[in-house]
């Protein structure tokens, strides 16, 4: 039996002594105290000259909280770091908002917080402000996290979904669908044992090296929910171009391909949490790729297609079999099928 002191109660969110002890005893023990003089309700920062500020936010509600290759805490740091990094910004500071369900085991919270701290160190960002709320049992599922992040954006960067140009090369940094498959494994509902780990990782280091060799990268995005299909459709529509993919070149692990075959899923729509899509000028593709491959997050990088003129706003896949088909955006979540 777990002791009542080992679980989260409504008192932990009440703003009194219990809240203070949770923040100091658990949260700050891992995150560190931003200001030794005392806790403030805000953090201050100013960008260096010649930089703009990039600002983003994301919420994390993944179930289960722990999965092969990561957990909700690691995801909450890397998700926001990556959202900043794909704009070309250098991620600096993050906030951390926690919504806890009454009855959550303190040890679970501690594990998630520790994981966030490790991920923040790896991604070279600081968690400088935060908040904790506790809701009644049943009003949340264990633990939700929101992180907002600020990064500094050098003046000359203009990476955007509308900048893809005809002739550009389309690059991907990693195997597709590792995260999606790891979550299927962790949920256990389909009784599949899938030996694969989530690709959950920060991409700012990789992106910094890519930008160092090719400052004029046109589009950059981490392909999370909805997979690369969704990202590429946004690029195609916003840029008014066609993105032409070569299925033969698209990297998918054999075991993830197996998951897709058995459940009738398409790896192009599976979620990733540390895999980016880059659209770069054709003459830069080789140098960007070779740079990517020297970085641990980009070892498996390859070119998977080109930007062409028409049909505008569409993503077309040349299948391994030689035929062509349209890759559209899905209405909702991909569901496993038997027929």
């Amino acid at each position, binding site marked *: 039996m777990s002791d009542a002191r080992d679980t989260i109660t409504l008192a932990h969110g009440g703003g009194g002594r219990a809240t203070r002890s949770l923040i100091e005893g658990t949260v700050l023990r891992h995150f560190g105290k931003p200001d030794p003089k005392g806790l403030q309700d805000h953090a201050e920062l100013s960008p260096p000259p010649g930089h703009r500020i990039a600002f983003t936010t994301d919420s994390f509600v993944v179930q289960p909280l722990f999965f092969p290759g990561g957990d909700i805490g690691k995801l909450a740091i890397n998700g926001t770091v990556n959202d900043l990094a794909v704009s070309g910004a250098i991620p600096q500071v993050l906030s951390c908002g926690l919504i806890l369900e009454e009855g959550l085991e303190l040890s679970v919270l501690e594990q998630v917080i520790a994981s966030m701290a490790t991920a923040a160190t790896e991604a070279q960002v600081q968690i400088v402000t935060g908040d904790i709320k506790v809701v009644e049992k049943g009003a949340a599922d264990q633990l939700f996290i929101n992180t907002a992040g600020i990064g500094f954006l050098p003046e000359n960067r203009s990476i955007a979904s509308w900048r893809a140009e005809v002739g550009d090369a389309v690059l991907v940094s990693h195997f597709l669908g590792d995260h999606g498959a790891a979550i299927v494994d962790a949920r256990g509902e389909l009784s599949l044992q*899938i030996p694969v780990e989530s690709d959950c990782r920060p991409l700012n280091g990789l992106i910094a090296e890519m930008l160092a060799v090719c400052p004029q990268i046109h589009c950059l995005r981490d392909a999370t929910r909805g997979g690369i299909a969704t990202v590429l459709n946004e690029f195609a529509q916003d840029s008014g171009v066609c993105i032409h993919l070569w299925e033969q070149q698209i990297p998918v692990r054999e075991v993830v391909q*197996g998951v897709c075959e*058995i459940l009738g899923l398409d790896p192009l729509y599976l979620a990733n949490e540390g895999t980016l899509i880059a659209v770069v000028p054709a003459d830069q593709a080789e140098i960007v790729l070779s740079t990517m491959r020297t970085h641990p997050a980009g070892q498996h990088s390859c070119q998977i297609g080109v930007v062409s003129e028409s049909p505008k706003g569409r993503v077309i896949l040349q299948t391994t079999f030689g035929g062509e088909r349209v890759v559209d955006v899905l209405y909702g979540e991909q569901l496993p099928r038997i027929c």
Partner: protein
Amino acid sequence: MCLGIPGQIEKIIDKAKFLGEVSVSGLRRPVNLACLQNDVTDLEELVGEWVLIHVGFAMSRIDELEAKRTLELLTELGEMQDEWQEAQTSLKATG
């Protein structure tokens, strides 16, 4: 209809319940072998066999010889085509 994919039987888990484990390109899942009960005297004989899996059931054993024959037929078609193409080209060449 009827998504079915090939997998290899790795082991028998429970003979009485016709339960085995199957591997599909590295992933594993329990699979029911009741449909194959008439094919063998002992379920253990199925270990290592390739089967067609549908909704967690092994529905049919895959006949390796027949698979080969089908592929051979396709290869022969290719050879026939090549000969035909050659004949066409030499026809043209000889005018």
